[in-house]
């Protein structure tokens, strides 16, 4: 019993970064301040003191000691909340580490990440949750929130100790990419999670329909001879899980929606007021299966890049608020993972540092307002994760990102801070750049051209 209590105390320490007590107050003025949590989009000053937001307004209490940042023509928003980023530690440190990926997250303006449980070993015990938090704390600079495994070792045949995982600090449960073939186990998992009020993150893909697949079912995969993953793989899984939500009332978050029909199924469930939410990976809002042509291994992702009509439907769903979060779905790889014939390469994109510009591109395209884009990156995912983040309210920890929305830059893989250089956007011209990232008032990232 006492151990359990200690764990709780420890996790509380792990989650709320100790605000920087020392150091000078900071005044950011001239910026367009986007605070989607309060719906505010104004040119105001923000004063940061003792690691927290001390004041927001046209004028702020005079602080003669304050360091001042003149942020004319820049946007200030809460630090980004990323619903899915794999830092590869423990278990796959040849791909990346918490140290490298924390720096990359900071450079991407991300202050909070959710770590899925498919590390090695799997996060299916309280000890593993604590181990993750300890690693995160040692790396420092990013608040890492852990998703516990929904089933033991992600095998799908027995429930993990969800209550203990939650007590240790897990903010939700997930089976990551691993299927749960037994529908009774799936149903009981939701029942059990409901009792704990623990959100369950589901990657909706029917394992049998997707078996062996590596590309969207359509003309491109057919011409290239790639084993397809049909749209029905997503839709069938969504329908299955939604029917279990109808039975159990459990809160389910669907990860990485990829299809137009999937979005329709989600909309129907939402219209019946079921407690379901969804996110989309930023690359799904831009790339399509046409980008896979030529066997482009950097475009090998799961779920696969879909048709242009799917991408457009996802964009519309994001605009309408049906999809409330954009995430990076960050999966850094060593170079060798992509040096193989397409079907044998490992899926995934190193995406922490492109999450913001890819989302801002939707603002530049006129699809989202700046406040909507900020909401999908901060308050939206924070609400889904059930974490206290994504707000600029006075008194909250000063997790902020200062952005130049118009700054154009070319992505050079050698300049990425992530250990994973695997991105299909290499050489692409992006618009929108993170200039400064603050975590609990401390400036943890400053762009060289800030």
């Amino acid at each position: 019993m006492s151990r359990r209590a200690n764990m709780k105390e420890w996790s509380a320490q792990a989650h709320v970064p100790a605000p920087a007590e020392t150091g000078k107050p900071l005044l950011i003025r001239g910026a367009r301040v986007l605070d989607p949590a309060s719906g505010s989009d104004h040119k105001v000053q923000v004063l940061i003191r003792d690691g927290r937001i001390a004041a927001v307004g046209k004028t702020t209490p005079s602080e003669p000691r304050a360091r001042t940042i003149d942020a004319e023509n820049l946007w200030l928003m809460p630090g980004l909340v990323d619903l899915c980023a794999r830092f590869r530690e423990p278990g796959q440190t040849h791909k990346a580490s918490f140290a490298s990926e924390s720096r990359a997250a900071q450079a991407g303006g991300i202050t909070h990440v959710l770590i899925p449980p498919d590390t090695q070993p799997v996060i299916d015990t309280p000890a593993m949750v604590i181990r993750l938090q300890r690693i995160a704390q040692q790396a420092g600079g990013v608040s890492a929130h852990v998703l516990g495994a929904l089933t033991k070792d992600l095998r799908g045949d027995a429930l993990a100790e969800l209550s203990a995982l939650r007590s240790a600090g897990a903010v939700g449960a997930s089976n990551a990419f691993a299927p749960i073939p037994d529908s009774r186990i799936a149903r009981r998992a939701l029942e059990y999670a409901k009792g704990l009020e623990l959100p369950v993150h589901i990657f909706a893909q029917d394992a049998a329909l997707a078996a062996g697949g590596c590309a969207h079912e359509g003309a491109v995969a057919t011409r290239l001879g790639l084993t397809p993953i049909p749209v029905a793989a997503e839709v069938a899984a969504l329908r299955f899980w939604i029917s279990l939500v109808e039975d159990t009332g459990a809160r389910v978050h669907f990860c990485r929606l990829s299809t137009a029909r999937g979005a329709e199924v989600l909309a129907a469930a939402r219209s019946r007021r079921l407690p379901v939410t969804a996110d989309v990976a930023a690359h799904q809002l831009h790339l399509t299966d046409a980008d896979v042509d030529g066997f482009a291994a950097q475009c090998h992702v799961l779920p696969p890049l879909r048709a242009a009509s799917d991408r457009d439907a996802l964009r519309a769903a994001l605009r309408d608020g049906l999809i409330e979060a954009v995430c990076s779905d960050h999966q850094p790889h060593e170079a060798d993972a992509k040096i193989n014939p397409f079907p044998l390469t490992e899926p995934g994109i190193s995406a922490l540092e492109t999450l913001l510009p890819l989302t801002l591109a939707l603002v530049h395209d006129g699809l989202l307002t700046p406040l909507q884009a900020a909401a999908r990156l901060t308050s939206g995912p924070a609400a889904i994760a059930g974490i206290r983040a994504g707000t600029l309210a006075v008194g909250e920890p000063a997790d902020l990102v200062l952005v130049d929305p118009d700054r154009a830059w070319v992505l050079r893989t050698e300049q990425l801070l992530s250990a994973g250089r695997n991105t299909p956007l290499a050489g692409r011209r992006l618009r929108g750049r993170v200039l400064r990232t603050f975590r609990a008032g401390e400036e943890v990232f400053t762009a060289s051209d800030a």
Partner: protein
Amino acid sequence: MSPELQLDSHGRLRHLLTLEGLSATLLTEILDSAEDLDRSLRGPDKSLPLLRGRTVINLFFEPSTRTRTTFELAAKRLSADVLNLQMAASSTSKGETLFDTLKTLEAMQADMFVVRHEASGAAHFFAQHAAPGVAILNAGDGRHAHPTQGLLDLFTIRRYKGPDISCFRKLRVAIVGDVLHSRVARSDIHGLRALGTQDIRVVAPPTLVPAGIEQMGVTVCHRMDEGIDGVDVVILLRLQKERMLGAYLPSMGEFHRDFGLTRKRMQAMRKDAIIMHPGPINRGVEIEGDVAYGPQSLILQQVNHGIAVRMAVMAILGQAGTPGAPARARRTRRPAARTR
């Protein structure tokens, strides 16, 4: 697709990875060259010095007898030194990656690799990473492409429906069977389309037709009698029995009932229609035994044509490596940069 990968800046073949993106002119050139070589093989002396001193490595990651044999024979008749490597189905179990295998064999100063691998895109992968001057010849990659089979099918069709290359424009062609898994079907479709064939029908039950194949320029037909009605050419595809049963087809017998080419069904076809099959055939499944060796069948001629066609491709790739300088000399001037 990236045609620049298999073509040089003058539009000549550097590698042969797929028939997709190859022009009618280039295809005609290859077929003409194969005709020349085929004539030269009729004498008692079957060897030509075109690849003398060159090293060709047959790198097969999938079991194959006939394709490997014809490649070997083709290379030997061009006087190349030939090495046959039958790699374990999963060579990764030995810990060597495909990249390492390629680099190791390149270090033995091979000039050309004939590659077969179960993964779609494997030939592209080798071409992307091959040193300059080393040619990659795709002998079948997954479901994607089998370009020399496509070429020998075109060669055979022209022999019997030509000789004018424009014969392809008015042809009606039915491709029957497991199109889903077939790299032969995809290569045939690209080749026929490039040569102007308008009426290509894919004939199979829906489980064996991949999504969106219409966009390759074919029509889909789920009834054999309609599919072969009035056609000039029927290309039957091999059904891999072990893969089919259960999920794709209820039984081989049912496939034969609905899609097997029988003497009775042949009556719907034109009297001068020709029948082709990449082999090896499953008697009583895709085709009735009598039909396979009947007067309209060109199955054995296809095998024979395969040698000349493969010789032609090898000769063209061999020459591409030598615009003035031997391939090996060029390679030493520009050492391979490992692209990672």
